[in-house]
């Protein structure tokens, strides 16, 4: 009954011991449901690109870290409520989010793309291989028109509160029938089940799912960047307010920027990215 004893003790310990003062420890919030960025394995451990990167960055900062699980839809509110001090959850740096929180410099590039099941009439969509919404121009406009036509009347599925949802809601591709899910896992399930005609997310989220499930998920259309898709994925941190707490947040931003610089220079980000994505998505 060793397991039993251990559990009871650990449960009891976690029950009533609350640290009331900000310890010199950085708490990092992640979702744990967005493989290969961050997820959980069968032993309940958090794994993924960002989890490994977080430990590396903490080493450079020289402080202890704790990684905290948080549902995606409450990620930014929970940061603001000080449930943790930083977000590393595949969160892209966008103007919309910058109104509320700060971001470190980007550490990785999230390439977004549409996905369908094999046999969909969206396969072979005639668009450039990638479009940057910030640059614009006639070719981007033309591609958006093509996508608008392709998505008309279709159910397009995305995870809630993501850049992907923002893009579909922005009107750039007309008025789309968007369905939002709590996690990317659910989007994948419903895409495979046929409840979704199309889905939009990080391309790696689909390829990872296709690999592991063996389902014939196919990427279609261009890769998206710029505009609603933001400028890479960074560490989300509270805007430094006044007083001691505010100063700590401002310092944390500096620390993370410094650590990302070091990790990039030493090749850590590239190495970890290649390990989890199969290619170098570092920024």
């Amino acid at each position, binding site marked *: 009954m060793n397991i039993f004893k251990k559990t009871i003790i650990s*449960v009891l310990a976690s*029950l*009533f*011991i609350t640290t009331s003062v900000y310890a010199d420890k950085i708490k990092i919030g992640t979702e744990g449901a967005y493989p290969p960025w961050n997820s*959980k*394995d*069968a032993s309940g451990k958090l794994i993924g690109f960002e989890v490994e990167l977080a430990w590396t960055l903490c080493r450079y900062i020289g402080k202890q870290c704790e990684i*905290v699980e948080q549902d995606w839809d409450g990620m930014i*509110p929970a940061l603001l409520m000080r449930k943790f001090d930083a977000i590393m959850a595949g969160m892209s740096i966008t103007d919309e989010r910058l109104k509320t929180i700060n971001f470190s410099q980007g550490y990785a590039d999230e390439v977004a793309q549409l996905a369908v099941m094999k046999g969909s009439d969206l396969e072979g969509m005639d668009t450039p291989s990638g479009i940057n919404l910030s640059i614009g121009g006639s070719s981007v406009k033309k591609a958006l028109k093509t996508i608008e036509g392709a998505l008309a009347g279709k159910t397009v599925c995305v995870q809630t509160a993501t850049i992907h949802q923002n893009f579909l809601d922005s009107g750039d591709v007309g008025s789309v029938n968007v369905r939002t899910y709590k996690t990317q896992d659910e989007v*994948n399930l419903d895409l495979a089940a046929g409840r979704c005609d199309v889905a939009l997310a990080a391309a790696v989220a689909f390829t990872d799912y296709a690999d592991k499930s063996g389902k014939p998920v196919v990427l279609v259309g261009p890769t998206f960047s710029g505009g609603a898709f933001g400028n890479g994925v960074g560490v989300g941190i509270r805007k430094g307010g006044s007083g001691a707490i505010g100063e700590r947040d401002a310092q944390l931003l500096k620390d993370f920027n410094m650590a990302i610089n070091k990790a990039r220079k030493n090749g850590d980000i590239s190495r970890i990215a290649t390990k989890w994505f199969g290619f170098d998505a570092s920024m």
Partner: protein
Amino acid sequence: MELLAFGKTGWGDELFYATLMTIAVSVTAMLIGFLFALIFTPLKLSKYKSLNLIGNFYTTVIRGVPELLVIYLFFFGGSGAIMFVASMFGYYEYIEINAFITGSFAIGIISGAYSTEVFRGAIQSIDKGQFEAAKVLGVKKHIKFYKIILPQMLRLAIPNLSNVWQITLKDTSLISVTGLVEIMRQSYIAAGSTRDPLFFYSFAAVLYLLLTFISMKLINRLEIKYSRGF
């Protein structure tokens, strides 16, 4: 069955811990609920209209708003509210409440509203004559409460409290926002990771059924014990 293996490959041990967590949260929430009931039942039964109002406000609002919303509000607003109170006492540091306390309190507030109603009903249904008899016999106030009212109230309340327990137990499935890994969250994680939601949600249902079944058996025993002599 491979999916339920213990150890690194399967989800058996995780689900086992998650079940213990569900039990721990439910029991703590139930106790917290009793504390709330201890405060609000007298308010509801008070002679003073303003105190009634406070008691009614609590039970009406909590029982009238979806549990999910109460939990979200407590999760996002709870520590803010505590920090606000602390700041009135000149304490401006961040106060952290851990996930277990947050989850148990969120469910406890809900559970307490139902417990309050049960206790109120139980006290009101105690024969008025008993209060008068105690008065006539000159029984002291606190003895009257502990020896006369409380035992009768408990006997009357147990069947309804077992309903509150069931509600509390099932409501713990909604606290995933707090990040506490109970049965539902663990099943959610396992379903996502293995892409087999049917198996894991069905298994979660079995676990909940097991918990309700066992707890009902225990409560029945309690009921028999307390109704002795009546």
